[in-house]
């Protein structure tokens, strides 16, 4: 079959690979479940945490400092979004665009100085 006739034809190997992978993923665990020996114990039924000992349930409260860092990250990270369209059009925007972006960045710097001096970036306090 000429691949140019049917655009989907070029995806045939992918489909075969998907089928094979899916079949393997089903067969191997079911074989292990059927054939393997089962000797449950208390140690084995605890949750696996990369080999170290379990340190309690996962649904704990997090310290507020994580939230503060996350909040600051969101705000400054998303503002960076505006830099991309400007960078792409840097040549055509010229000096005017450059100055505009400086003003924008200066505003962010005011915010940065504020949170810095307020100690929001200090991890240990």
């Amino acid at each position, binding site marked *: 079959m000429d691949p140019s006739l049917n655009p989907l034809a070029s995806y045939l190997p992918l489909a075969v690979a998907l089928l094979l992978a899916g079949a393997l993923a089903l067969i191997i665990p079911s074989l292990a479940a059927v054939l393997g020996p089962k000797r449950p114990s208390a140690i084995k039924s605890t949750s696996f945490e990369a080999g170290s000992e379990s340190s309690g349930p996962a649904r704990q409260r997090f310290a*507020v400092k994580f*939230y503060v860092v*996350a*909040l*600051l990250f*969101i*705000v400054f*990270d*998303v*503002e960076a*979004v*505006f830099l991309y*369209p400007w960078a792409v059009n840097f040549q055509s925007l010229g000096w005017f665009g450059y100055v505009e972006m400086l003003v924008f960045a200066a505003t962010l710097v005011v915010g940065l100085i504020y949170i810095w001096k307020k100690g929001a970036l200090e991890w240990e306090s």
Partner: protein
Amino acid sequence: MVPISYYLILAAALFCLGMFGVLIRRNALVVFMCVELMLNAANLTFLAFAKQNGDFTGHVSAFFVIAVAAAEASIGLAIVIAVFRSRGSINIEDMRTMKY
């Protein structure tokens, strides 16, 4: 290609989901996420129409909405933390200090 109407229906469904979530959910954080869902539904609508009309306005709008949503999220989370600190719970049912 997926028709535009599919995106619009998806956006409308998300918007309604968010709206009912705000009205009936009791956990402050979930309510807050529902509001974000509504904003994103509006965003999706902007993008779908922008694709249909082939102009930039909708794409640019999405940028601004994302930035505004981030600012709103940071203030909102800060307020939720303040609520939690003052009463040890973020259940909306508990917020009944002020009555008629």
